[in-house]
């Protein structure tokens, strides 16, 4: 069965909505844009498309290799499409969570998080190195269950298109029932924020229920201004440096490694891991922040005092 590519079909609308959001941000003063940051995001997106076209065969080859080992033949029907969409989103959740907790995957995913801004152009800041991380292994269960390759590619395309509109400050919150089930701009702002309380949360693609089920959900607090990007913000808009900075950092660390344990830590440990614990990880930042908050609370006299 031939299915269209949802991302290709949506691309003109991506451009249109960036234009609309820019105008809205400029005249309604809700949201921010900076030309050099936008350019970096858009060239990252463009580069990612080219790399996808060049190396898409890796995904197809993987599918062809694993397909004979499938447990079922689910065929083509609307219910199968729906189940495939939901399970693809679940696999996205776990890939995304792993991408924030394992440096090997983070070195790729960090590229998407590197903008200081949170607008629709940020959604297009796509990594260049995903093919080489073997993150596609997270799709293996879908193939083993017997969902056909074109169906998986199609529903994943819809998933990505859905995630476009949630990269915005122009929308506050959606109706309560929608916020409860779906990923929204509010939930995704939290995901992109570097405020200590927000680190490593809201990994959902489409359904925020996964975060609620697996304990990674954090609600946006309107009283705390969000700071976007990564803990150690980049000081460059050069797409090549954006794409390679964490990989170069990893290679540099590996060149100084003195044991297999250190090698494993630098590659598969959480981002920021170091043998002597001298660098910050999201866990250490959160622990420091909690300790600081507790100390502050202890110092604040109660009204009775």
């Amino acid at each position, binding site marked *: 069965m031939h299915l269209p590519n949802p991302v290709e079909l949506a691309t003109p609308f991506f*451009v249109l909505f960036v234009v609309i959001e*820019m105008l809205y941000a*400029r005249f309604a003063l809700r949201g921010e844009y*900076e*030309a050099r940051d936008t350019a970096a995001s858009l060239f990252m997106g463009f580069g990612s498309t080219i790399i996808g076209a060049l190396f898409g065969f890796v995904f197809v080859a993987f599918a062809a290799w694993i397909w004979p080992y499938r447990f079922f033949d689910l065929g083509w029907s609307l219910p199968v499409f729906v189940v495939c969409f939901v399970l693809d989103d679940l696999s996205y959740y776990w890939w995304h969570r792993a991408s924030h907790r394992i440096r090997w995957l983070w070195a790729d995913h960090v590229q998407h998080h590197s903008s200081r801004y949170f607008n629709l152009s940020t959604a297009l800041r796509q990594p260049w190195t995903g093919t080489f991380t073997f993150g596609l292994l997270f799709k293996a269960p879908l193939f083993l269950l017997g969902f056909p390759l074109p169906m998986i590619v199609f529903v994943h395309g819809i998933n990505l298109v859905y995630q476009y509109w949630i990269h915005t400050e122009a929308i506050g919150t959606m109706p309560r029932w929608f916020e409860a089930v779906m990923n929204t701009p509010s939930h995704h702002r939290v995901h992109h924020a570097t405020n*200590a309380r927000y680190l490593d949360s809201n990994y959902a693609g489409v359904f925020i229920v996964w975060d609620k089920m697996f304990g990674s959900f954090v609600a946006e607090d309107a009283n705390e201004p969000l700071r976007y990007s990564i803990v*150690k913000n980049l000081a460059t*808009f050069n797409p090549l440096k954006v794409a390679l900075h964490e990989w170069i950092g990893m290679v540099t660390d590996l060149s100084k490694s003195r044991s297999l344990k250190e090698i494993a830590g630098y590659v598969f440990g959480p981002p920021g891991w170091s043998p002597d614990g001298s660098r910050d990880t999201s866990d250490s930042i959160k622990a420091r922040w909690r300790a600081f908050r507790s100390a502050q609370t202890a110092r604040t006299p109660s009204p009775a005092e």
Partner: protein
Amino acid sequence: MGLLLYFIGSLAGVALMIGLNVALFGRKRARLASQAEAEAMLAAEVPGFRAGRFALAADGGGALMENAGDATLYLIAPVGQKFVSRKLDRAALKTISRTSGGLTLQLADFTFPQLTLKLDAAQSGDWEQRLDKMLR
């Protein structure tokens, strides 16, 4: 042919969006106005930060600040319309040199361009000494 058209169309879209961004928002550069601004930024980023010694470049093009809580030193530098901070320690700071223009810092981070802070001679000397001691 379809794919080529898609790439050409995408590039045209990219050009349109960047052009509109410049037209609507200009190309301002961030400038640090005061110690309070630098302090607020670091306080948001570093739990428990307390401002200590401070030096602001004359043109607002960066600052050095100490966390009085643990005596760590921070560099704040403008990057586009925002600021980026770095904790300065032996691993982070590569070289430091004093010139007539001020104090020039080169970090080990290859994404961080070399930065010259326009400080007066006394401030330059003081901070060079402190950073130099850290490097040794």
